[in-house]
């Protein structure tokens, strides 16, 4: 479930990248040659028109390639933010990082390492089944567990705040397993340093 969520997210992101790209260049329409006997003037006019069309299409292509490069950077930044902000999900009444959680957290590590100014706040959440009050402690445990995973891998604890909302801010409403699964989570919010993200090398 969790892994498929991540995969779905990546698929959506790549679709998003595709959507940012301009449509493939269309070949500029070349005026058709008149069937009337060609005079010199007409020949010159036709040539001039072809030249203009060609120049136009080159200019368009150049502008498009510039736009493509800019949007790729923006998309990359959006991608980095999405990876940073991707939630991590937990099992019922548990705060251990799951395999899927490890994948999501591992993906954040290089971005955090390449962007020393980044500060995050992790908020822990629970499903609606437990005690309202105890769930606040469980939410904190989840946030702290996600932070520990990152700090154990070299990210300074001081860069990450933790907070808990227990069951007070559900991501999904309803009293069924699919809502429970989506609500047992840690959310990641960029507090600062997220404006000019560098791509990890």
């Amino acid at each position, binding site marked *: 479930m969790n892994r498929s969520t991540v995969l779905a997210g990546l698929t959506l992101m790549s679709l998003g990248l595709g959507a940012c790209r301009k449509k493939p260049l269309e070949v500029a329409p070349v005026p058709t040659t008149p069937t009337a006997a060609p005079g010199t003037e007409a020949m010159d006019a036709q040539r001039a028109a072809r030249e203009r069309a060609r120049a136009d299409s080159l200019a368009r292509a150049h502008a498009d390639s510039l736009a493509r490069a800019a949007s790729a950077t923006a998309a990359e930044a959006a991608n980095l933010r999405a990876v940073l902000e991707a939630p991590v999900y937990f099992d019922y*009444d548990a705060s251990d990082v799951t395999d899927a959680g490890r994948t999501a957290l591992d993906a954040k590590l290089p971005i955090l390492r390449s962007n020393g100014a980044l500060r995050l706040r992790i908020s822990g959440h629970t499903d609606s089944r437990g005690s*309202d*009050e*105890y769930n*606040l*402690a469980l939410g*904190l445990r989840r946030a702290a567990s996600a932070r520990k995973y990152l700090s154990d891998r070299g990210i300074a604890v001081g860069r990450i705040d933790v907070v808990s909302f227990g069951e*007070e801010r559900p991501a999904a409403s309803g009293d069924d397993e699919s809502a429970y699964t989506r609500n047992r989570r840690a959310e990641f919010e960029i507090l600062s340093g997220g404006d000019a993200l560098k791509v990890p090398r």
Partner: protein
Amino acid sequence: MSIRFRFPLFRAFALLLCAPLGGWVVLQAQPGVRLGLIYGEGGGRPGIYVAPVSGAAGDSIRTIVMRDLDFGDRVTVLPKATALPASATIDYNAATRLGINGIVQIVPTSGGATVIVHDVAARQVLQRGTVALPGGANAAPWRMGVHRLSDLAEEWITGVRGIAATRIAYVADGRIWVTDSDGATAVPITQPGRALSPSFHPSGQSVVYASLEPAGSAIYVSDLRGAARRVVAPSGLNISPVFTPDGSGIAFAHGDDFGTELYLVSAGGGSPRRISIGRGSDNTSPVFSPDGRRLAFTSGRSGHPDVYIADEDGTNADLLAALSSAAQAYRSSPDWSPDGRAIAFQSQLGGRFQAMVITLRDRVVKQVTSEGANEDPAWAPDSRHLVVSSSRSGVRQLWVLDIETGRARQLARVAGARLSAWSPRLAN
């Protein structure tokens, strides 16, 4: 017919003292001292008729008193249509024929009312007294005065003071609300936000609560008009506060990377002192025994949330009740009864919480709800009624249960109301 008098159980202390005597006590009648109504054995509750009340607000007073006595679950309130002839003097013969055991007569005075309880079998006035009704008809202080009048009448009739002159605090829409025991005059005492877990000061005049803020949670004390002061600043998790029985301190749960532990802070603020030893587990929802010497709380120390009791300093923690089956593997949210004899808590059964009561003398656990999910039971000052957040109507709302009869009444039609707390009996 036998003559029975009921022992006046004014305080939890007195109740504890008489507990070995077995609850109701038959006393020798003393001239001039009446401790309860005379009525027949076997019939259960005395039948009480509240006589019509004169004056513009008379019918409001009568209606409120009848409802209060009914909600007390200790008397049978006879309908308004009971055909007792209206006259200046009470017709005890007619009352006897109508099955009336006691009559509550209320006479408005300037700024208040005189309440007279008649003992029909004894053909005389049992007790009389005057209550102030300030603020004008149907205003909040006036209503509280009428509730006090009801409680006085209930005490004279049954020997036990009523619980009408009390308030209930609860959470709805992220705000703390305070309402009268009959669900009237609900007022918010916090702004919209994420306030949780109200609990009354022993004076009943202020409420301590937690507030979830973006950078962490904090603890506040507010008066009933909403003037609040912060006791614990937001830093990590600060939740589930409760006053010590003497009102001088506040116990709460504070969480950090190493778990959530119970702390005690002066009600005036200052440095909190740790009082639980959870060794990295989660410990929340503390509540003191009425004598302040013991503490009940929720802890995940054994791997699943369960209710523990410990000494006030957190030592000698023991599981409150042995697990009777694996299905009860989530128990939490204890509340200690004001008479000290029982603890209410919630236990997950078949995926839903139900309210449970354990008597501390014999550790017998009784399930007191079964319809819908029923969460966060909180005791009324009579140690007989509980307010719970129940989904029995399809929506989570507050209900009051009489644990002796199982009767349930809806307190307020507020969807999502939860985490309630009951005030002590209020002097004003």
